[in-house]
């Protein structure tokens, strides 16, 4: 395929993915907005007023970056996992396999489509958060880079999950038993400096801690970890996950007999 044809094919997958989550917006865009509003009301307003400040900023402002990141992570992941597995289940994935598109392009299309949903939800949650607190981004470029990289990373993760999944239950195991606990323990609601030394050490092996803190640094200018190292680690994870996803796709795992 020529460069122009590749670009059209990539754009086709991305548009199809965006059209899909837009078509079912009551399932994809509305629930995270409502959930996050509840978090802002309960954790930010009601409990946050008793907590006071965390790392020198008021508690409501402190939790906003974490909650935005949490919604980006879960939505990027679940978009690709459910969309690609749905295509596998309906066998419409055969359209892609039969087509002349190279595997890297199919993977890229789904990943960008998934990241688009993550970022859409992130923007909605950010707008909701403005009803509760003022946000002044300290490092807008870093904020944008980190949220996009995180969305891409978890989109690839969702794709790998969908490839390996044999039934619908398999695509909910990782979000429920891995992503949610790691996100809650990833410094969304607290600074790891408030933890005992042992648990601080344990927290440092949680990759989501680095994403949440780097994003928080971009918005509030405060972080528990080295931001430069975190950005490099996220980039490395994206490359590793992409290669794994590509290899599984080439092997036709769950797609070709």
């Amino acid at each position: 395929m020529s460069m122009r044809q590749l670009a059209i094919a990539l754009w086709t997958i991305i548009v199809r993915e965006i059209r899909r989550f837009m078509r079912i917006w009551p399932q994809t865009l509305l629930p995270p907005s409502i959930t996050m509003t509840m978090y802002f009301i309960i954790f930010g307003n009601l409990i946050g007023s008793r907590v006071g400040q965390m790392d020198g900023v008021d508690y409501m402002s402190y939790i906003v970056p974490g909650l935005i990141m949490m919604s980006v992570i879960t939505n990027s992941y679940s978009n690709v996992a459910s969309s690609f597995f749905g295509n596998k289940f309906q066998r419409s994935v055969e359209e892609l396999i039969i087509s002349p598109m190279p595997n890297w392009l199919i993977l890229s299309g789904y990943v960008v489509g998934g990241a688009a949903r993550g970022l859409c939800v992130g923007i909605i949650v950010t707008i909701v958060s403005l009803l509760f607190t003022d946000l002044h981004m300290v490092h807008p470029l870093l904020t944008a880079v980190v949220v996009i990289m995180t969305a891409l990373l978890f989109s690839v993760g969702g794709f790998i999950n969908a490839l390996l999944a044999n039934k619908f239950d398999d695509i909910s195991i990782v979000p429920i038993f891995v992503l949610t606990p790691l996100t809650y323990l990833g410094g969304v609601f607290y600074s790891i400096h408030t933890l005992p030394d042992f648990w601080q050490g344990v927290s440092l092996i949680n990759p989501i801690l680095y994403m949440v803190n780097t994003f928080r640094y971009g918005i509030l200018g405060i972080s528990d970890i080295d931001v430069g190292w975190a950005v490099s680690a996220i980039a490395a994870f994206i490359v590793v996950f992409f290669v794994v996803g590509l290899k599984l796709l080439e092997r036709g795992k769950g797609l070709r007999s």
Partner: protein
Amino acid sequence: MAEPALSIRGLTKVYDNGFHALKGIDLEVPQGDFFALLGPNGAGKSTTLGVVSSLVRKTAGEVKIHGIDIDRDFSRAKYQLGVVPQEFNFNQFEKVEDIVLTQAGYYGLSMRECRDRCRQLLEDLGLWEKRHATARMLSGGMKRRLMIARALIHRPRLLILDEPTAGVDIELRRSMWSYMRRINAEEGTSIILTTHYLEEAENLCRNIAIINHGEIVENTSMRDLLTQLTRETFLLDLARPIEATPSLAGFEVEQVDASQLMLSIEKGQRLNDAFHQLGEQGVDVVSMRNRANRLEELFVSLVEQSSGSAPQGGEIRS
């Protein structure tokens, strides 16, 4: 000499469970042909077509589409190919027009380039009025036609139709036949058809291969194959009921019921002779039809021979 539309050499497929689905088959489909690939369930038809369309990984062998090796230049090879699979494999929640245009996008065709083509296909296949309907709202026949429109949007040179008229009523089936004939004749699209309706294969296809137990048991032109039929059986409807079965010299006759006879004719025998004898015995025939489709008789016979069981019905001249 023009490259064949499809060339298969030594194609072997052994599934993970050890099942030997294809045992080194060779097959060639000439350009512009309307080719039937027939075989009983589980014979290896879908596996063969699955390998060609890259849904199934081959164990060994070589596949070329219009001279392009699917292993060496898969992108260019796949561009030549359109596939209408046995089962509906589009997103049931998408709109008809979106399904066809999205497929065009997968082949690198922009919306602008293929809108007219999409409209033409949907009109030809009677789906234009349904273009804004979601696919799941379509009837079974419409879904089949949607899969044909989707497969043709990028103007493939080789079209694989895997049981395209399964579950479709006879009227619609005939209109689909005429459409397939048209794209074969006017656009020069080579077509490979698998079907369980042998009448369909006999009507449409010029060449034929029969596969059984992962091996090609016959590969010839439809005309040559039909000349192998050494015996045909006809059902004769009688004007008046008869009590005893008439005896015809040189012919095998069975009485189906009081108003119907079954007459078997060997190759070289004349129907006129049989009718003459029937007339002499006062038996009036008002209509006549083949007991089974001619290809069906041959097919059953070939499959039974290759399976090692005794042939029934039509016999094959050795």
